[in-house]
Each structure stands twice: as structure tokens, then as C-alpha cells.
């Protein structure tokens, strides 16, 4: 059933993982102020459950999921709510956020004691994951319970645990695989049970031999779980590319993985789901990588959600030079945040600080039609054309050339010798198309 270990197209950027890959996960201490945005996931923002002056406990729900595609939000420490108001969000806009002044006691809200997976029903797993506010920790932050509740009639037969971590620099998933290997396997079993299926594939990139060794020895003779070593290439961890490589099923344009019988979950999400389902612990912190040439002490940290980037950077010894650009996530799909006072959210897989000379803006030149963007596009598009369509506002032609198929992996812009900002234009044209539809 399983054939290839890679996809067509893609690029080979410098991995730069050695900066942080051998550093164990440390706990980031509690900061002086915690700011928790009520929108940290794909879908509708959560509704606030607390108001100014309320006392909250660690792990207490402070935001209720609103609608099917949404996620609950919890307090990451105990203390007092000092305000509920708009605050800058890593994605650039202002979002309703809960301000908490920690009391330093870190007192937990009551937690159900550990249970055996055998005794937890399928429905309980999903409701516990939902209550714990678990979302995809790979970056897109899609609510996990939604992915585990496929609509009636869809035939899911395969679970893929995405442990590829193809973004350069990031090593958070890698450290989890090494340090919490048991959780990765247990999390996989939890997902299998929730989906009621019997086949899982854990996909790891070939540049992580230690993790591969540890995972395969723990999987042992488990017949349900298989380990697949993927070629080291970006964007190997892209959902559709991974599915196609592992199952030879191509997710049709505009469809979802479940339409071809597959559910993909990130390896960090699997670990968080173990905490939620077995330990009753909601998602209040996450492991992230602080890395790059401009940070004094690169680290893999477990950080409470709502901790400001500035506190995390200070904890890592600060920067060598005043940063002009700070990236949330990796260098390929990461988001340049508006300022360092933004909080860590569920989707913060890393904080990347590059020397200013490495992120300097280069003036784009004319397209010389070298075709490199076409060669590298994993979705089989001709990305260069979308710049033209954007400039001439030709939305129809953009649609005809399947612009909606673009996942914005950035391989085209990365490879472009004329430094044409293709992803920039593609995002713009997509948003114009969305507006036009309304």
C-alpha cells in the first residue's frame, strides 16, 4: 500500500536545525503578565467566560468554543483577570484577549485523575479533546475534535501522524519525539480509537535519525502503527503531499483529507491529546523553538500560552542586534509579527530571530521566465503568473489557473532569482476573490 517517500517538486533550503536540535526542552518560568487571545485557532473566536476582577485558576476555562469549528481557551496560570480587551495578535490584527496578573501560586483547577485508555469511550475522547481546547499544533491550529469527528458517511481508514517538521530551524516536534516518545505512541492510539480505525502511519523526515530509532523501538511489533521515513525536502510535511506520498491518494482541489479517507494529526497535537484525555489537562502551554542567528541562547521551551514574545526572548538571553523582523514559526511559512509584545498562542511553533542582514528586503526584478517556480511548486501551479494576474486584477484567470490550490508554502518565492514576492500576490488575489464572492 505504501510506496514513495516524497512528492513532486519542492526545495532544499538549509535546515539550520543543529542550532537547537540537541537542547532539551526547558520550562519557561511564569511571566509577570499573561495575555491570552480568545482567537488562537482556525474558525470562530471563543466567547469570554470571565470579566475584569475575576479570580482564575490554572487550567480554568476562560473562553467557550463558539460554533462547530472553534476551540475552548483556558488560563495558563492562577491569578486575577485585570482586563478583557483588544490586544495585538501575532497574526497582525487586534483580538479580544484576557489579561491575567498571576498570583504566583499556579494553583490548578481540579483535574480528573489518570485513567486507562481502555476504559475511555470513543465519544469521551473526542469531548475531552474538545473541552481541553486542543488544536493542531503544527501551525494552522485547526480544532482537533473537528478532525476526529468526520461527517457521517465518510470512510476513514488511515491516520497519519505528521512528525515531518520540514520547516527549517524548528526542532520543537523533534524534541518531543525524543523526550516524550511514549506520549507520541499513546496519542496515536488515542486518535485511532477516536476514529475507530486500525491503521496509523507516523511520518518522519530522514534528517532525524535519533527520533526514528527511538520511535521504531517503541512501536516494536505494534501492527497498527507503522513508521515511514520521508525524504528530507520542503514542504514534505504539507498535508496533501504527505497523503499522496504515503497512500497514493490525491486530495481533489477544494476537498479535505477526509474525502480520501485520511486524517492527519501533528505529533505535538498527539502529545497534547494524551495530556487532555488521560490527564485531564487542557492545552495551556506548548513546546516551541527559539532560534536563529540573532538570539543569544537558542532553546526549546515549554511556554505558557499568553506569555509575551518579549519575555521569551529575554529568557533566551536577548538578541545580538535590535531585531527588525521577528518571525512566528519557521522561515518558509512563518508570520512576521507586528511587535515583540504579542503573546505566544497555540499555533506558535517557534520564534525565529534572524540577523537583520539575513532578512533584508530585496527589490524584486522583472520575471525572466526561468520556470523555477513551476519546477518547485508541489501543487503543479505556475506561480509566476499570479503576480501578473494580481497586478492586472485578472481574478478570473487566476481562478482558472487554480490559484485556490496554492497552500502558500513559499517554495516559489524562495526559488525566484528575481525575488518576486509570489506568495504576497497570491494571498492578495485570494482575498480579493473571497471578497468578490461575498
Amino acid at each position, binding site marked *: 500500500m505504501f510506496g514513495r517517500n516524497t512528492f513532486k517538486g519542492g526545495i532544499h533550503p538549509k535546515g539550520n536545525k543543529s542550532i537547537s536540535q540537541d537542547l532539551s526542552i526547558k520550562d519557561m518560568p511564569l511571566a509577570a503578565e499573561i495575555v491570552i487571545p480568545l482567537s488562537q485557532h482556525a474558525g470562530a473566536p471563543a466567547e469570554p467566560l470571565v470579566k475584569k476582577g475575576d479570580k482564575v485558576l490554572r487550567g480554568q476555562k476562560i473562553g467557550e468554543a463558539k460554533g462547530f469549528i472553534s476551540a475552548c481557551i483556558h488560563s495558563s496560570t492562577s491569578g486575577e483577570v485585570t482586563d478583557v480587551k483588544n490586544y495585538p495578535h501575532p497574526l497582525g490584527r487586534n483580538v479580544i484577549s484576557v489579561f491575567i496578573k498571576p498570583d504566583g501560586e499556579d494553583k490548578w483547577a481540579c483535574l480528573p485523575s489518570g485513567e486507562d485508555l481502555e476504559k475511555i469511550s470513543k465519544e469521551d475522547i473526542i469531548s475531552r479533546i474538545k473541552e481541553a481546547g486542543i488544536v493542531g499544533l503544527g501551525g494552522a491550529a485547526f480544532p482537533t475534535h473537528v478532525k476526529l469527528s468526520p461527517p457521517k458517511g465518510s470512510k476513514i481508514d488511515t491516520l497519519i501522524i505528521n512528525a515531518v517538521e520540514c520547516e527549517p530551524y524548528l526542532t520543537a516536534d523533534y524534541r518531543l519525539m525524543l523526550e516524550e516518545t511514549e506520549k507520541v505512541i499513546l496519542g496515536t492510539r488515542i486518535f485511532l480509537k477516536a476514529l475507530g480505525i486500525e491503521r496509523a502511519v507516523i511520518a518522519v523526515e530522514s534528517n532525524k535519525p535519533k527520533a526514528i530509532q527511538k520511535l521504531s523501538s517503541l512501536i516494536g511489533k505494534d501492527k497498527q502503527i507503522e513508521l515511514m521515513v520521508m525524504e528530507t525536502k520542503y514542504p514534505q510535511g504539507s498535508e496533501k503531499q504527505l497523503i499522496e506520498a504515503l497512500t497514493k491518494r490525491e486530495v481533489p482541489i477544494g476537498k479535505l483529507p477526509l474525502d480520501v479517507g485520511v486524517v492527519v494529526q501533528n505529533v505535538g497535537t498527539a502529545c497534547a491529546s494524551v495530556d487532555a484525555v488521560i490527564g485531564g489537562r487542557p492545552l495551556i502551554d506548548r513546546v516551541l523553538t527559539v532560534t536563529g542567528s540573532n538570539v543569544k541562547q537558542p532553546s526549546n521551551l515549554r511556554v505558557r500560552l499568553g506569555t509575551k514574545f518579549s519575555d521569551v526572548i529575554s529568557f533566551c538571553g536577548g538578541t545580538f542586534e535590535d531585531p527588525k523582523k521577528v518571525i512566528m514559526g519557521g522561515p518558509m511559512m512563518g508570520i512576521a509579527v507586528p511587535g515583540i509584545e504579542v503573546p505566544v498562542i497555540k499555533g506558535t511553533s517557534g520564534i525565529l530571530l534572524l540577523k537583520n542582514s539575513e532578512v533584508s528586503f530585496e527589490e524584486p526584478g522583472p520575471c525572466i521566465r526561468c520556470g523555477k517556480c513551476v519546477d518547485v511548486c508541489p501543487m503543479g501551479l505556475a506561480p509566476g503568473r499570479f503576480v501578473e494576474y494580481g497586478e492586472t486584477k485578472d481574478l478570473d484567470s487566476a481562478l482558472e489557473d487554480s490559484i485556490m490550490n496554492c497552500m502558500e508554502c513559499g517554495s516559489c518565492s524562495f526559488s525566484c532569482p528575481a525575488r518576486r*514576492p509570489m506568495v504576497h500576490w497570491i494571498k492578495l488575489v485570494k482575498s480579493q476573490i473571497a471578497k468578490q464572492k461575498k
Partner: protein
Amino acid sequence: MEQISKENKLLAMTISPHIYDRQTTRSIMRDVFIALVPAMLAAFYFFGMRALLVVLVSLVGCILSEIAFKKLTKQKGPLLDGSAGVTAVLFAFCVPSTLPLYMVFFGACVGIIVGKMVFGGLGYNIFNPALVGRAVVMASWTQSMTTWPAQNAMFLGIYDAVTRATPLAGLKIGQYTAGYMDLFLGNVGGSLGETSALALLLGGVYLILRKVIKPVIPLSFIGTVFVMSSLFGMDPLYSILAGGVFLGAFFMATDYVTSPIAFRGRLIFGIGCGLLTVLIRKFGGYPEGVCYAILFMNGIVPLIDKYTGPKVFGRATK
């Protein structure tokens, strides 16, 4: 623990990705230039100082006309991106070293202005600028463009004293006037940069190794000439080594701007170039067909691109 500045300072919010590959338009032009060096040295060796002079005049013509055009039309952006230099050398490579220098200058200017700038500059031209220059000079001064120096005489500094036929002249009628080794090394008559297959091959391999070009166009071009020549009863090895096939296949047909952007398109383009080259050589009025073959194929690139795009992921193929 060091405190970093606390004020909510606005940072640069550019769209991802935040890193780039090392290759830039300039580095590509530089690599093409480097790749042309072996053939240039061969030209100097076989055709002497006169070859150097032709290259220099062509460079002056191309660069001056590009700058002048940009100034006159008040274009923004950098005056030179390296592409004019590449065009200049390529144009010089496809004329005989004895061509009067004013014709060289004229052809270089025409190549840049008519071949490139009037279309909107780099990236927008339909035809290979160097070949446009060559075609115009060929039509204007056919006599001068088809008078070939004997190299050894040139090397000794005796200009215009002896002329000799190019290896291609006899191809139509089955007269093979040069040995394979002379053809391979370049010890034959011809345009100044086209004679040494070895030097061009070295440059071509360099471009492939540096990932500037992919082998698909050169291989399909040369391969088609080889196969079609033998079908038409011509010596296939002689056919690919003589004339401008290597120069055209590695340096002209691979010009990004004027060739298709996807693999299948490039394959069709390369085969088309090879096919037309052989047809012109066999049935046309000129002994050589590389120039017009590439120019013709340049013209239908938009058509090729339209039907040979990559397969879109997830698009139904039932």
C-alpha cells in the same frame, strides 16, 4: 537575563517566506558569462585579435543601446542587469570574425533595441535578442555574413587573405570537409564562437551543474538534429558538431525568457528547434538553420506554454 526593549515597536511585517535561495538574476547572468569563457578563449585562439575586437564592439553596442533606450524612455530601475552583456557575447559568437565592425555595432544595437527593449525589456521579449541581431545583419549584408576566414591565417595575423568554406557548406551535397576531431575542437571555419563544440560543451555542463539550465532543451535539440540528419542521409555526428548546433542548443535555445517554462514544453521546444534546423539545412537556401529554427520556435512559445503546463495537483484526470 537581559531585558530587551519593551516598547511595542513596529517590526517589518513582510509576507513569507523569509529566506531565499542563493541564485539571483545577476548571479545567473554571471554564470552564463563564465560559461561562455571557454568558447571565447577558443575564439581568440582560432581567430586571433580580430575576435576580441568583435566581442568588444558588440559589448559596447549592446550596453550603450540599452542605457540610451532606458534613459530616453525614462525607465526606472537599474540601468544594467547583466543581460545586455550576455546578449553582446552571444551576438558576437554568431557572426564571422571578419565582419566589418560597423556591422557588428549595428547588429548589437538592433538586437538590444528591436529584439528586447521595444517589447518592454528583460523578461518581456519574444525572440532571442542576439539572434534578432544576427538575422537582421544576415539579411542586410549577406555577403559579409557568409565570408569565412581561414583560421590559421587569422592566427598569424594575415587578415582577409584567405577564405575557406565552412564545414556546413558541403553538408547539403554530402561533402564532408572536416574531420570529427577538428570539428570537436573547433579547428574549422565558422562564426567566431560556434566552432569549438568542446568549449561550448564545457560551458553547457557548467550551466547544468550550477543549476542555471536543465539539460532537457540541449539534449532534445542536439538529439533531434542527430536523428533527423541520419534520416535525411547526412552524417549525424558531423551534423551536430558542425555549425551552430552546440552554441544554439546550450546558450540560445535555453534563454529563459524566450523558451517554455515547464518540462514538457521545453522538450517540444528542443525537438522543434532540432527538426527545423535539419529541415533548413537540407532544403533551405542557407547552409545553416540553427538561428532561424530557434527564432521560429521562440515565436510559438506562448502557444506551447498554453498547452504544456504542469499537472495541477488534485485536478480530476478521469
